[in-house]
């Protein structure tokens, strides 16, 4: 990582456009008075508190819990929480207090140690994900060169925690949930990686400030959008769609929440959990969804950039706005769509998403070759964007037709007959 990140703001500590200024000022001051080593701890603490204040608290509590319930409420033509505090704003706090005071039951025949550890393991990756997300030009906790892979690696961990939860509870419904989530995780990891590969191919190796961008680093992806004045989503629309579907499957969001499908297997792997143990799963589900949204905002929606607007508006606000926009998609699908059956979900991953993702990589790699032979001409990327959007729509529709998608053959109105009688074979109802 040798690329200098252009500072957008001044480096006065009071310049809120870049919160790294203020934390640097504090750490520099602390370095002078405190013994060595404490500053490392302090840096982590500041990072934690700051991200908690500007991101986790508003997002998790107020978008994740309150906002989701409120928006779903409006989708379902009801009010949502409106009793606790003004407009029900204190509802998440009341929920948390209720969960904390509730007894966390452990079934007698369960595997106690595993059942106890599972929520803890579930929480850890949700916190770790945010370490590599760039909130602003210099506001990234660990700017590792392989942050995209880091995200992939971390996001594969919660599956194990959910499996542990499902297995240890010694409940048949929990076991179903565990079985389903393990099968689904294997299936959906593949198209997810393939989709992200498309985004990496686009950004990787593009020239920037005398150097080349590293497509595996999230900050470089943001710089790419800034350099070429286009978000990755316009060049890679198909990748975003596949990413969204795969990530909602991995996160157990509703169209694909087969691991905790409440109408089928009660609550899946969470069936035997109660109290704050359940609360940790619930809260961190939102945490993962936010992490996935933040990641999508970084990779596909240009991160903290907004076509030059980031010079006036604090970049971290732009970034949080984009994250919430993406999270809204999760809420929206949750409020609208029914759930797929587990075998249909697997078939969808392997038969539909994977070929499309491979096709997408092929497409973008071809374009990448043309682009690098044209010396990364800036205008060319817009041509690619238009081409890719058209080709993606055609590919999705064409592949669906190929796999047997025939909406016009599906009658959505029943046949009508005038008189009662016996069985009427299809096609002979007209003369009754």
């Amino acid at each position, binding site marked *: 990582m040798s690329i200098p990140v252009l500072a957008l703001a001044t480096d006065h500590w009071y310049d809120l456009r870049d919160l790294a200024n203020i934390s640097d000022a504090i750490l520099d001051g602390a370095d002078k008075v405190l013994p060595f080593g404490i500053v490392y701890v302090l840096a982590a603490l500041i990072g934690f508190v700051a991200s908690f204040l500007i991101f986790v608290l508003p997002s998790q509590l107020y978008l994740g819990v309150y906002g989701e319930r409120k928006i779903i409420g409006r989708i379902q033509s009801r009010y949502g929480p409106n009793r606790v505090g003004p407009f029900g704003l204190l509802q998440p706090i009341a929920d948390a207090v209720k969960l904390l005071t509730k007894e966390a039951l452990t079934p007698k025949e369960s595997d106690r140690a595993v059942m106890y550890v599972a929520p803890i393991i579930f929480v850890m990756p949700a916190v770790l994900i945010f370490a590599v997300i760039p909130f602003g030009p210099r506001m990234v906790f660990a700017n590792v060169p392989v942050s995209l892979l880091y995200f992939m690696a971390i996001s594969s961990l919660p599956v194990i925690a959910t499996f542990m939860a499902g297995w240890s509870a010694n409940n048949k419904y929990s076991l179903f949930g565990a079985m389903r989530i393990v099968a689904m995780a294997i299936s959906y990891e593949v198209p997810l990686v393939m989709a992200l590969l498309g985004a990496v191919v686009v950004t990787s190796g593009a020239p920037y400030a005398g150097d080349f961008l590293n497509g595996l680093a999230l900050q470089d992806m943001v710089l790419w959008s800034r350099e070429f004045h286009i978000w990755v989503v316009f060049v890679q629309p198909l990748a975003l769609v596949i990413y969204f579907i795969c990530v909602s499957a991995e996160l157990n969001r*509703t169209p694909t929440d087969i691991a905790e499908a409440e109408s089928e297997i009660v609550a899946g792997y969470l069936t035997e959990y109660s109290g704050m143990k359940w609360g940790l799963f619930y809260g961190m589900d939102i945490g993962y969804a936010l992490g996935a949204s933040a990641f999508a905002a970084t990779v596909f929606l240009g991160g903290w950039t907004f076509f030059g607007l980031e010079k006036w508006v604090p970049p971290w606000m732009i970034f949080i706005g984009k994250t919430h926009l993406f999270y809204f998609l999760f809420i929206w699908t949750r409020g609208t769509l029914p759930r797929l059956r587990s075998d249909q979900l697997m078939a969808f991953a392997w038969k539909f998403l994977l070929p499309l993702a491979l096709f997408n990589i092929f497409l973008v790699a071809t374009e990448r070759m043309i682009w690098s032979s044209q010396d990364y001409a800036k205008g060319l990327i817009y041509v690619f964007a238009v081409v890719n959007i058209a080709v993606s729509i055609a590919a999705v529709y064409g592949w669906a037709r190929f796999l047997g998608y025939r909406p016009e053959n599906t009658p959505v109105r029943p046949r009508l007959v005038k008189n009662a009688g016996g069985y009427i074979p299809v096609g002979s109802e007209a003369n009754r």
Partner: protein
Amino acid sequence: MTQTIKSEPFILNIGPQHPSTHGVFRIKATVDGEKVIEAEMVMGYLHRSMEKLAEERTYTQNIPFTDRTDYLSSMSNNLGYCLAVEKLASIEVPARGNAIRVIMSELQRLASHCMAIGAFANDTGAWQTPVMWAFREREKILDIFEVTSGARLTCNYMRIGGVAFDLRPQFEPMVRKVLNDFPPFLQEMEDLLSGNEIFLSRTRGVGVLSPEMATNASLSGPMLRGSGVAWDLRKADPYCGYEQYDFDIPIGYQGDSFDRFIVRLEEMRQSLHIIQQALDGLPSGPHSTQVPLALRPPKGEAYARIESPRGELGYYLVSDEGPAPYRFHIRPPSFINLSALREMTVGGTVADAIVVLGSIDIVVGEIDR
């Protein structure tokens, strides 16, 4: 390859406490992985001994019992019972009473089908949205019931010889509002669910019931019509003057869960049509004939059947000239329809079993009585 991976089937108790059993009802399913290889129904958790209790009460006192069998369509149940008593005691109902009965039972069908399709969509995993939308519309009908009978769920409105009270002045505008609001709502449900690829893939070809099977198991209502059998007691054996109204019988194509769903949606359209006609031609006159409070029908027996939202609802009464029925029996449509559950679930997955159960639209109060 002679060796195969063996799997151990195990027994999964779906219910009695399960979010999708619509009450306290249990399916004892033997599953092999996700596949259901045997399903046994266990019921009786809500048994309240209504048929025996009714033998101790007078004919009029039994009407509130019928509210509580199928608690999602109390008006239809009242009607079925009253028709049976009227048949037993040869009582004529005035024209206005019949028209009110028709309007009420069609409104009840709308309310019940709202619940049915909402809960069905919920079973497929559409998280609460269709059920909430359906409840929003059902509420308007329950308001009408409240204005007319004083109760929303257990109305106890029909009486032997007519209905309990005449209609209130605000009744007609309220019904007109329902007639206006429902078509857009039905269109909305169709847009949300019938055109939804996920919903289609969850319901099409799931729980297929052949017409032979459906008739042999003596199913009725949307279950039978979904299999393509044109059978509706309002046409086949009209009561309350249904022969005056113009409406169609919707029938399905292949008898899967989706067909039952679209049949219910279309039945709601037909019900709106019937209500429209009945309301426009509402006769004046008395709403009820005078019937002695301690009714003692002549010796004999009577069976009256109506097309309840769930199918053929029959009441069988035997009189020994006493003030209470000698024998009181209900033919509950949910109970009979449920008998086909095993045929439809075995071979599918657990998720399919839930969808099939939702498509039957059971009311446990009616099954167990």
